[in-house]
């Protein structure tokens, strides 16, 4: 099966500022791919090139077998876009919006079904201007889904959500995976990438600094920490072979008949790796 998205050495500058400095990745069909990075890392620029909004300065890009820069209405019929900002007509109701957008696509999903899916059934006849921020975002998602796209672009889908709304949105995005949709998601929340994405690319200053499964990212580079207290002093061991180190340590303690106080074994969280990746080179 060909990849849903191929990006090869993509470059994009705005005047003097190089927003994206040669990044490459592929997204398989049916995969949920996360672009993770702090603000200004080039996530939105990358996504907007893939959506066909921006022209690139260099490199090659293919989305569903077409170059977004040249692709037309047929191609747009197969993609779904949820932009960072929720722009809508304030005077239309939720259902009218979804029905309006359904009319733009050749094989739309059922309007009521999509409204239910994003959890806006109770608000179906409310005008958009009366919705809360979280509800607007859910309507955004509904508009991205209504065309029954093969690939869905989600640019920071949960920014500004309260924790309950985030959980709900995560549930929805997981259900997209079950539908077999390819999803490209940008976020600056690590737990979001960890929870949702099959693979994650970490962006910093327009470059990919790490790429892989969330658990692979967590498993490499940073040493496992073993901490305990001995004679009132805290001892910290950092090791790439935690099993061996721990065996030696506990074996030694057993032989000497002592108890290792406050013994802890910790693998770094994705958060720590992320912070290290996105900060270390700044100095």
């Amino acid at each position, binding site marked *: 099966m060909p990849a849903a998205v191929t990006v090869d050495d993509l470059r994009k500058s705005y005047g003097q500022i190089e927003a994206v400095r040669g990044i490459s990745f592929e997204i398989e069909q049916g995969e949920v791919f996360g672009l993770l990075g702090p603000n200004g890392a080039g996530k939105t620029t990358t996504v907007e090139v893939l959506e066909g909004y921006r022209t690139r300065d260099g490199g090659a890009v293919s989305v569903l077998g077409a170059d977004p820069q040249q692709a037309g209405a047929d191609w747009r019929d197969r993609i779904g876009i949820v932009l960072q900002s929720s722009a809508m007509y304030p005077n*239309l109701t939720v259902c009218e919006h979804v029905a*309006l957008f359904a009319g733009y696509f050749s094989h739309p999903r059922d309007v009521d079904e999509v409204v239910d899916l994003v959890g806006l059934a109770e608000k179906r006849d409310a005008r958009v201007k009366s919705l809360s921020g979280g509800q607007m975002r859910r309507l955004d998602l509904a508009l991205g889904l209504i065309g029954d796209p093969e690939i869905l672009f989600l640019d920071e889908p949960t920014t500004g959500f309260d924790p309950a709304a985030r959980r709900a949105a995560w549930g929805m995005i997981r259900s997209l995976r079950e539908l077999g949709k390819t999803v490209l998601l940008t976020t600056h929340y690590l737990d979001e990438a960890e929870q949702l994405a099959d693979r994650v690319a970490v962006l910093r200053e327009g470059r990919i600094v790490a790429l892989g499964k969330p658990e692979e990212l967590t498993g490499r580079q940073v040493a496992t920490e073993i901490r305990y207290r001995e004679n009132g002093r805290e001892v910290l061991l950092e090791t790439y072979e935690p099993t061996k180190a721990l065996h030696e340590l506990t074996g030694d303690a057993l032989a000497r008949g002592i108890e290792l106080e406050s013994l802890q074994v910790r693998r770094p969280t994705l958060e720590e790796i992320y912070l290290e990746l996105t900060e270390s080179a700044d100095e």
Partner: protein
Amino acid sequence: MHQLRNEQRLYWRSHELAFFTFLFPVLIFVLLGSVYGNDRIKSEHGLKGSSYLLAGMLGYGVASTAFAGLAIILVIRRESGVMKRLRGTPLPAWAYVAAMLISAIFVFAIEVVILLVLAKALFDVPFPTHVFSLVLALLLGALAFAAMGIGLTTVIRSAEGSSAVVNAVYLPLAFLAGSFWSPHAYPRFLEVIADVLPLTYFIRMVRDIVLRDGEIWNEGTAVAVIAAWGALGLYFAIRRFRWEPRDA
């Protein structure tokens, strides 16, 4: 068709806009008509004030619905990001612009009928005889002013500024062109300015058709000037059209 129905719904639901662009010309017509509707205007060969005003208001109507209304809506949608979102759908740009245009023309058509009926009922202005000529003239005006309106949006930077800029353009335009009263008493330099403006020619043409049994094919100069302005608007509209808000 789908998009057109939506445009209509959107227009009538935004009460403020509908009021200012649709009802305003009707109100002014009734208001000014009661002030000098029964006077005779000497400079216009003793024409009745209300008859004179009818043509002016048709001109004002086209400027407010097709030009001002369209321009304001377009800028607000662009700056709020609605246009950007639409661009991400398979809806072709021409279908969207066409829907907006036809919607504006539809609103204007209702306005014309109301103005004609009011003129007949309140001030006894007879219905025009050359209906076909009138329809053609109004259609030409609506298309040309819509093109100018879209052209104007390319120089407006923000949603906040849209109604300010649009009003600053079209109110003096209507004033100079003689929408509200006869411009014959204007000082010379205002007349010179008015002489190049499209609305002046539009009102003159409509007046000839409505009041003097004229036909559109006898109005070559007016048609040419209006079409030229329309083409200029179209040029800017196509060359500098933006889908996305500034700085976003």
